[in-house]
């Protein structure tokens, strides 16, 4: 028989996939800036449209920031599985000795860390542009850190379902945006509640609960969607 080779485990495959994605990101580092630039432009456009009224801006700052982050993530969503589907990488993922859901989870988390996290890091600057009261900034960052991975995990299911459809940009948005509504309501709502003097912890806990559920269920649903798309 053939000399037994090495069968990689969960961590080895994850490490290989993370290393690959980071290398690809570095080779196309110009593209990596796009979500950040997009969020910045949305915020600038809002600030210009609202005029020079700091109070009006401060009232909508949390909502605008959340929308800017959400839309930037939406734009990046199409790149989640598209190139891997077109060059046949997903076919090979299916034949890997680890569950497809695991590879999908790693891919989504790396995608989140490279598209959504930079925007969250930039959020204090954007909040300053919108005159968000400083005492609300930690709460905004907490809601974004809980909410954006949740958006990525939900979006992953939609991206996987539409991956076999070419030019599916608008379709992905039409399918994903309604699913984002609860995340947006609780995310932006937590900051708004604090601005009105109410307790924001409940909304954050709901986001955290949603994130835990999505971490378990979304990769399974995404893997099933990929199998359907390849079929």
């Amino acid at each position, binding site marked *: *028989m053939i000399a037994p080779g090495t069968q990689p485990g969960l961590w080895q495959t994850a490490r290989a996939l993370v290393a690959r994605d980071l290398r690809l990101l570095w080779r196309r580092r110009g593209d990596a800036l796009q979500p950040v630039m997009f969020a910045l432009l949305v915020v600038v456009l809002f600030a210009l449209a609202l005029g020079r009224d700091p109070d009006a801006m401060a009232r909508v700052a949390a909502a605008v920031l959340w929308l800017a982050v959400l839309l930037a993530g939406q734009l990046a969503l199409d790149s989640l599985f598209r190139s891997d589907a077109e060059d046949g990488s997903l076919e090979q993922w299916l034949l890997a000795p680890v569950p497809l859901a695991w590879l999908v989870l790693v891919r989504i988390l790396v995608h989140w860390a490279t598209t959504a996290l930079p925007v969250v890091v930039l959020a204090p600057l954007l909040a300053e542009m919108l005159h968000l009261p400083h005492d609300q900034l930690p709460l905004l960052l907490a809601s974004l850190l809980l909410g954006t991975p949740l958006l990525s995990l939900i979006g992953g299911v939609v991206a996987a379902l539409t991956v076999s459809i070419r030019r599916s940009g608008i379709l992905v948005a039409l399918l994903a945006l309604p699913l984002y509504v609860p995340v947006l309501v609780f995310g932006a709502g937590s900051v708004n509640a604090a601005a009105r003097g109410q307790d924001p912890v409940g909304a954050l806990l709901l986001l955290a609960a949603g994130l835990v559920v999505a971490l378990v269920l979304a990769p399974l649903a995404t893997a099933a969607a990929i199998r359907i798309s390849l*079929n």
Partner: protein
Amino acid sequence: MLNTPPLLAARGLSFHRNDEPVFGPLDLQVDAGEALLVQGDNGAGKTTLLRVLAGLVRASGGDVEIDGRPAGHRERAQFVAYLSHLPALKGDLDTLENLNFLCGLHGRRARQMPGNALAIVGLAGYEDTLVRQLSAGQKRRLALARIWLSPAPLWLLDEPYANLDLDGINLVNRMISAHLRAGGAALVTTHGAYAAPPVRTRLVQLQPAALAGDPP
């Protein structure tokens, strides 16, 4: 090898797309040390057959056994290396990075290194070349290097001769011969225009929406 189950066996395997039969019902069997040539014209269902065997597409009927067990994800991950029409290569990574990633995903055959595999397929000196700068034939050779490195004993090769020059066709045949001598097996689809490897070979002839037998 009296009591060893066949590496791959399919019974009554068929596939329908929108109620149109694509192939089958089909019986086939591949033992260790054998090659199975799947011949047929364009559109006869060769690629679909391989996708069904690789588990990418669900069969409409029949069952597949790998090493005597019903084929599931675990059996396929352990036994199957699949060369698709799609190269599964990243254009923005160099050849060695591509092979390293695929070895990290699928594992690696004992005593085989990505650098040696590149030399075997005639890509020595291209270690730092980005894949998008390679020609179609060179990409095919790189995909073959991945198959060569795979620890899986059962190769499913979809048109491995496509885009290759005469030297490349010989390379494929040499690789298959060496793999079979080591106790592996290979399914090779071809539309019949190329020389087959000089090994123990079974033949399956696919016709559009019909079937032919399996003369040993």
